[in-house]
């Protein structure tokens, strides 16, 4: 691309996030593990990219690299054109684990502290905004509760509120609902979707559940395991987002076949029959 990371570059030209041929390795005592190999993608403003793949295929590793917690062995990750070097509040992360809130601060305290550190807000303003955000995720009555008194779903809500409140360039979510029961998971997916649509947030959402990827994402990137590479990419049309709709089911079947096709090593059959299975799904690219 011909752009340079200058301040006056048109916002539309520079994607909020670009991952360019990134390879991620772990150096362990047992040797070098390549978790992610040669992965490239960009996320446009307001887009929600669902990173879908079976467990162990390197989704969290990739998310940690985007978060700045892990340095790529090769390739480059750019945030608004600027190479990512360190973690920072311009990429707020919501983790899968429930222990991501500071146990010594209340729900509002956690959000307010993030606002003070990341946005340099004064105490009063940070607190007011924190309470507003606690209310927006349904934790208004629990704003003064300490995390250990909350259920898993409520803790995840608080973490989501903290991430949104900081208004990052991009939200990074690593299977935030994976440890919840099925009912809470559905509710939280809907609530997250509403928040994203209200705020127009740009998201990178990691999941191993196909239905979650379709419901939450505007675009889906399928990773194949060992090492993680981009297997396929799908754009989710608005009518496919509706759970239980024909388009939803068709896309789900389509992706399922793609993933199981790869795992069961059915070489070309899945690739050719795709259009017939999913007339509504726009398949943009197949790689690998």
């Amino acid at each position, binding site marked *: 691309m011909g752009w340079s990371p200058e301040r006056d570059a048109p916002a539309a030209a520079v994607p909020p996030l670009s991952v360019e041929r990134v390879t991620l390795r772990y150096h362990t005592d047992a040797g070098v593990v390549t978790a992610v190999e040669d992965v490239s993608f960009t996320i446009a403003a307001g887009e929600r990219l669902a990173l879908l793949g079976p467990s162990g295929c390197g989704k969290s590793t990739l998310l*940690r690299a985007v*978060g700045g*917690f892990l340095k790529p062995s090769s390739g480059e990750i750019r945030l608004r054109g600027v190479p990512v070097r*360190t*973690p*920072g*509040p311009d*990429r*707020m*992360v919501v*983790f899968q*684990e429930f*222990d*991501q*809130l*500071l*146990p*010594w601060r209340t729900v509002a305290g956690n959000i307010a*502290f*993030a606002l003070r*550190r*990341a946005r340099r807000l004064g105490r009063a303003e940070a607190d007011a905004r924190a309470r507003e955000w606690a209310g927006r995720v349904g934790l208004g009555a629990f704003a003064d509760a*300490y*995390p*250990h*008194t909350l259920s898993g779903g409520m803790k995840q809500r608080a973490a989501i509120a903290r991430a949104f409140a*900081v208004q990052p360039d991009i939200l990074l979510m690593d299977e935030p609902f994976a440890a919840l029961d099925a009912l809470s998971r559905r509710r939280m997916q809907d609530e997250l979707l509403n928040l994203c649509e209200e705020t127009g947030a740009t998201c990178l959402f990691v999941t191993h559940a196909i239905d979650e990827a379709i419901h939450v994402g505007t675009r889906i990137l399928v990773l194949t395991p060992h090492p993680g590479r981009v297997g396929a990419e799908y754009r989710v049309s608005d009518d496919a987002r509706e759970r239980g709709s024909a388009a939803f089911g068709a896309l789900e079947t389509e992706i399922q076949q793609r993933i199981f096709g790869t795992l069961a090593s059915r070489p070309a059959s899945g690739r050719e029959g795709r259009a017939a299975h999913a007339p509504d799904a726009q398949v943009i690219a197949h790689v690998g």
Partner: protein
Amino acid sequence: MSDSALAPTARHVLPTLGPGARRLVLLVALALGWELYARWLGNSLLLPTFLETLAALWENLRNGELPERVRASLAILLSGYAIGIVLAALLTALAVLNRWGESLLGLLTAMFNPLPAIALLPVALLWFGIGGSSLIFVTVHSVLWPLALACHAGFRAVPATLRMAGRNIGLTGPAYIVHLLIPAALPSILSGLRLGWAFAWRTLIAAEMVFGASASEGGLGWFIFTNRSQLETANVFAGLLTVILIGLAVETFVFATLNRFTVQRWGQEA
């Protein structure tokens, strides 16, 4: 059937009391046991009665002897404790910041933690002579290693997710230590402080008994020791009682309160 029939009766025999009241009842029972046994024994040179001990305690408090000894001991204890905390903090900070520091801490604690502080007393006497400095030296030794070990273990045990969450909101350097590592490791730090306090108190009382010469400056340990050699057994017991009471007071008022307002409230208890 027989079990369930017995259980409620057994519970009815003892009135339901809170933990504080239960403790008080037990204390009274122990004091009563002491009093009765000592009276039965009838040898106040070996074991004075509880009431004799209380009287000796009162007498020594009134004549200013005991308060002066307590003051002398606490002054040494607090200096040693404070120096120990500062050194432990420096050593742990070094260990958190770099690998060499970590290895150094590991090595030093492995070497010195098993070494009884009293065993260092001869060295202390050689270096600092008889007096406060030697006592402070052994007290520092008794606090430093267990505290540094506890702090370091606490820092290492901070969950990876919490660390990442902290760095995510932009905490780096000293702010990361102050706003993330220390509060996250507080359960370990507090238990290290508690342990360090207990060690320091024991070490100091023991070390004071070895110090014969500087009687005018002597603390509680010295008070106990000199009264034993003068066969003032009631005073010896009054001194021991004072040691116990101060330990209990610090435990319940300082550490229990610190715990209640921090880690207990945050659900962080280890």
